[in-house]
């Protein structure tokens, strides 16, 4: 790796030779403090960043605090039912207004000098108000907000960039995948109480990659695969070649997905022996409802395909054995904090909910049968990066294929291409492996990809 005295040209950090199928990322991208600061400025201060889910603040006065792109924030539902987001820092002299992870309050009072604010953020109380001069204007001293706040189907995002495009446009092709998740429920989704918070001593981008990486599944998660096979997963062999290829896609703006026909159960509408006989009829019923409402094809995608969706830059919606929201907060070049929540359909309770909660714990979470080994893998890579003569990481799998699967890496290249464009100060770029020739596009159109829809021409 180049030393700090002669930093790499940003243009040279990613080698993307679409003709020869070469894709390499310079490992300083995961280790350099300068690049970390640059990411802060050009990515995290400019993109839409996930904040939280509407269900986390159900009633007026409910609040939650978060750290988002380095900033302490909180969001609160007002008396009018609106969710508002505030910087968690007192306009007076900076103390944190909200000092618990969550709760309910009618008035938000800063403990330091006791200024108080309503849930709309207005300054409504200043002890000893008369000592301030005539130019002291409470209207100017309300709680500050991030430049932009918007939500899509219950997921709230913020942006610190006043000029950010609107959230719907930003989400691009990821919107359809969020719809596939949210449409599974009739009464809306909710986050269950409790979150999994852990830190990984590795660069945040390694987890973005890893969460979309189908290539590592068998070697890294052999114990999980064996466990599920023992419970009756229809496993037609444990080699990479024996598995259905699925699809890896770049959805634009850095959002990416890896999508597969599920081999394990999906609590929504794909039964698996691990759910127990008594769940069979209920799951069949949900499936019939999905077919009725959305037609066979889309119902198949909702019920039988799993998706790991990356909302660029740092949010993952993992919809497979259960639905996990995974948020990555970068804290240093070699350290990230991860929070995971469990998203469930509101109409599920009792046995259905218990089945789903249990399914989550097999794979997911820092106490599950798989996540600890991912943590190990990422930390191992980060330590490996200290061998700085080894400058490049290879992300070229499937680059010359017309239809990359989940164990290929288009879904990671899509992320990196957007990252590289952003780091060069550009907003958009071609995230695909290449411009399709006419014959490729025709071939893609004539062939369904086994996931119930046609591959889009790339």
């Amino acid at each position, binding site marked *: 790796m180049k030393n700090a005295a002669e930093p790499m040209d940003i243009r040279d950090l990613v080698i993307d030779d679409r003709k020869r199928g070469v894709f390499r990322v310079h490992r300083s991208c995961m280790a350099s403090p300068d690049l970390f600061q640059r990411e802060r400025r050009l990515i995290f201060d400019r993109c839409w960043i996930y904040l939280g889910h509407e269900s986390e603040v159900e009633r007026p006065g409910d609040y939650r605090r978060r750290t988002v792109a380095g900033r302490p924030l909180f969001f609160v539902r007002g008396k009018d039912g609106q969710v508002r987001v505030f910087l968690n820092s007192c306009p007076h002299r900076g103390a944190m207004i909200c000092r618990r992870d969550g709760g309910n309050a009618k008035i938000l009072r800063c403990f330091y000098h006791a200024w108080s604010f309503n849930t709309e953020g207005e300054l409504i109380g200043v002890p000893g108000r008369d000592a301030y001069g005539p130019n002291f204007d409470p209207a100017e001293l309300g709680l500050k907000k991030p430049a932009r706040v918007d939500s899509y189907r219950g997921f709230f995002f913020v942006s610190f960039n006043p000029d950010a495009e609107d959230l719907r446009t930003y989400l691009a092709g990821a919107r359809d995948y969020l719809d596939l998740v949210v449409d599974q429920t009739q009464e809306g989704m909710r986050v*269950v109480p409790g979150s999994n918070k852990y830190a990984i001593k590795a660069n945040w981008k390694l987890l973005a990659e890893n969460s979309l990486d189908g290539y590592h599944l068998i070697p*890294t998660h052999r114990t999980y695969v064996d466990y599920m096979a023992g419970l009756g997963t229809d496993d037609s062999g444990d080699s990479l070649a024996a598995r259905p290829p699925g699809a890896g896609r770049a959805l634009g703006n850095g959002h990416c997905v890896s999508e597969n026909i599920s081999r394990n159960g999906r609590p929504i509408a794909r039964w698996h022996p691990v759910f127990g006989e008594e769940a069979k009829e209920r799951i069949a019923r949900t499936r019939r409802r999905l077919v009725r409402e959305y037609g066979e094809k889309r119902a198949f995608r909702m019920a039988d395909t799993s998706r790991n969706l990356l909302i660029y830059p740092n949010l993952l919606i993992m919809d497979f054995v259960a639905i996990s929201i995974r948020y990555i907060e970068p804290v240093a070049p070699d350290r990230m904090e991860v929070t995971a929540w469990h998203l469930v359909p509101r109409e599920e309770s009792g046995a259905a909910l218990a089945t789903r909660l249990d399914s989550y714990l097999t794979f997911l979470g*820092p*106490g599950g049968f798989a996540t600890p080994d991912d943590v190990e893998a990422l930390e191992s890579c980060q330590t490996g990066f200290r061998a700085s003569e080894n400058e490049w990481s290879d992300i070229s799998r499937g680059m010359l294929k017309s239809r990359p699967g989940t164990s290929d890496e288009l879904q990671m290249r899509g992320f990196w291409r957007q990252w590289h464009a952003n780091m060069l100060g550009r907003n958009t770029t071609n995230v695909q492996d290449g411009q399709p020739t006419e014959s490729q596009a025709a071939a893609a159109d004539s062939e369904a990809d086994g996931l119930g829809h046609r591959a889009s021409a790339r």
Partner: protein
Amino acid sequence: MTATSRPALRGIVEEFLFREAALLDDWRLDDWLDLFTHDARYMVPSTDLPEGDPGRDLVFIDDDIMRLRARVARLNSRHSHRENPRSRTRRFVSNVRVEETEDRQLSVSANVLVYRFRSGEGAPYVGSVEYVLRRDGEDLRIAYRRAVLDMEDLSWHGAVSIIL
């Protein structure tokens, strides 16, 4: 174990807990499994919801005996990468309290400090463990075991990769 005095009862339970801790620190996990009843549960709630109920909330771990066996099989295999090579652990068990329940089970709580060392780093898991112990002849069996962490998150360890 009939009409055992309180201090004597605590002595018996402590003896049991110390033996359990040694089995875990020595990675004798199959022997550790033998301490459990067939209807046992092992639970670790999330750090932000210590009272979390696995039927309603998100927890870290909620194993019935089948999954606990699978967890041990996983930890015994070469492919549980977070624990291969295995970490070194040392458990300190103290502040043991024992209540006898009406159905002659023992409701036990203890403070635990589990130091874990691996890959050049070391940090403790700090918390309490609650047990329901059942008498089995002269012996005791674990019917329920719940490890509640005091840390605010898993920022030191990144995972719960050992038995807590």
